[in-house]
């Protein structure tokens, strides 16, 4: 298997799905001539032409709405939002249109649309450019929320997302595009809604996704030095949400900590805690704790920003409270 970056893995997925299905096309700001602001669509305009790799004006509501309409008419658009921060500009199209048309039209409409959006903090981009909005989208029924952490998943999940007849918010992390990993060539599908145990452990379960998977693995290493074996579960998405894998792990470790990059309050961690409490109350030896971003708009200053984003030390500290 070849070692490639998440960026290349995503590019492969797009290329392969466009070759496989003529109904698949890309659109977004600078996805064509510029090959994407993160270069994920490199080479695709040259290969597939302007009709299938559509550069758009800076108009996120228009982009998502156009993609939604094209999907209603039978195409399989993959819309790239330059970053997830701008998904908020298109929130009405996503929440009130993309997510609900199938249902409100009695199942007669289908929106096989994938919306790709890079996000996350860590690059000193400040209060308007550092969001991770998994929790917001996961709250809206009708939307799938898929979040890859490694190259193989980036490829396998994106291919599944594009083939899904449901609208999918595919949330990439700006800090992971350069991360390398082994990725199967050609047909490689990772089903949506299946979590993965990244590291086995018996003492505590760390439930996480996206870049925080790496933070948790680092924390697990640190804990291991003191003989604490943490099991790291990569949810790989929030809708569908694979509680089975989480429950199996927690029933074994009897302790859990959720780790998310976004604002802790009213984030997705609370949902996991609530489900764990309801479904595994008697299996828990300690409260399920959460680690999350500071509840502040992201500051520009490097030290302040680092303090706002969860790191391994923070995770270790939380684990030590319950182990």
């Amino acid at each position, binding site marked *: 298997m070849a070692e490639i970056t998440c960026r290349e893995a995503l590019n492969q997925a797009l290329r392969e799905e466009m070759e496989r299905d003529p109904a698949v096309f890309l659109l977004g700001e600078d996805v064509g001539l510029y090959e994407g602001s993160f270069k994920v669509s490199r080479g695709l305009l040259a290969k597939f032409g302007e009709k299938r790799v559509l550069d758009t004006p800076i108009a996120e*509501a228009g982009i998502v709405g*156009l993609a939604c*309409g094209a999907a209603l008419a039978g195409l399989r658009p993959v819309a790239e939002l330059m970053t997830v921060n701008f998904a908020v500009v298109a929130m*009405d199209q996503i929440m009130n249109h993309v997510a609900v048309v199938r249902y409100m039209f009695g199942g007669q409409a289908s929106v096989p649309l994938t919306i790709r959006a890079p996000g996350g903090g860590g690059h000193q981009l400040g209060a308007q450019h550092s969001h991770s909005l998994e929790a917001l989208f996961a709250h809206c029924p009708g939307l799938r929320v898929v979040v890859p952490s490694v190259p193989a998943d980036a490829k396998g999940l994106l291919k599944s997302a594009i083939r*899904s007849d449901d609208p999918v918010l595919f949330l990439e992390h700006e800090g992971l595009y350069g991360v390398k990993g082994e990725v199967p060539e050609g047909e490689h599908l990772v089903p949506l809604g299946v979590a993965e145990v990244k590291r086995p452990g018996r003492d505590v379960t760390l439930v996480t996704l996206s870049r925080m998977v790496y933070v948790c693995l680092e924390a697990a290493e640190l804990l291991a030095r003191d003989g604490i074996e943490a099991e790291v579960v990569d949810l790989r998405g929030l809708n569908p949400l694979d509680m089975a894998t989480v429950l199996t792990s927690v029933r074994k470790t009897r302790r859990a900590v959720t780790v998310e990059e976004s604002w802790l309050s009213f984030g997705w961690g609370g949902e996991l805690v609530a489900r764990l409490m309801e479904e595994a109350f008697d299996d828990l030896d300690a409260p399920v704790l959460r680690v999350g971003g500071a509840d502040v708009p992201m500051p520009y200053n490097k030290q302040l920003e680092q303090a706002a984003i969860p790191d391994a030390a923070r995770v270790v500290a939380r684990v030590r409270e319950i182990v």
Partner: protein
Amino acid sequence: MKTTQERTLLEGRELLTMYRDMVRIREFEEACPKLYSEGKVGGFLHLYSGQEAVGVGVAHALHHEDYLVSAYREHGLIIARGADPGRVMAELFGKATGVSKGKGGSMHMFDPDLRFMGGYGIVGGHLPLAVGIGYAIFYRGSDEVVVCMFGDGATNQGVFHEAMNMAALYRVPVVFVCENNGYGIGTSVVRASSVEQLYKKSCAYETPGSKVDGMDVLAVYDAVRQAVQRAREGGGPSYIEAITYRFRGHSISDPGTYRSEQEKKIWHERDPIPNFAEFLVAAGHAVRSQIEAIDGEEKAGIEAAIRFAEGSPDPAPEELWNDVYAPVQEGGAHG
């Protein structure tokens, strides 16, 4: 090639169908308030009475394969497109036999066979969708057209701007039809739009804009037919402002006190239905008795539609959970 006489007959027939469609819509809409007050119909209820000439003019300018997308004031549009009033009424009743299985209601009707791509409730929200459908047509290289209907108020929304720009930029076959009925709920056009003549807004997109009398079904038909043809031939989008009036309040709950009796009276004199009947008779396309026959048939048709709706079943309780997601596909969980 047909003889003049045949053609007149054909036109005559089509003209009568136009009249019939307008009467059907009016009968349908005017039956609603009572049903609403009886609690048989719920939710919001935005009636089309007064605007029939726009919807019918548009519908007759389209081919069967063409698409129509609309805002929430769409009963008349889906009927003009050929929907069975029974299924439309059943939707208002929230019944399983409704055009949206009772899940959409007055604002959210849909019929893929008629290529009626939906009624939407977020003002302006469906405009980019229309552009997307147009893009799909362009993508496939087929020669269909999309007509997108919206109100005067929608022209002040940001998505109007984005949709108009993208439609022109990609030269997609979309005809934007603004139904200017003078008001967005209680706010008159001049109090919401810096430009009073709404058709002028297309100047910012180098898209042809024109204004048409929305109380004259033939005027609407001609304007839309030309725009549709232009789009079909690859000429790109156009924008038509149809000047019309809603005879009732914004929705069933709106007394409409912000409009003077005088103003309403003037517009009622311009009622598209009786005026078109007069024209048909005067021009010899029909005789009075035909008109009366149509009026009677359509009245009866709506009564039948109501009976159908009343006799239809509610959706099964488990329908609450259906249609949120696509049925699980082969190969892979939710894949």
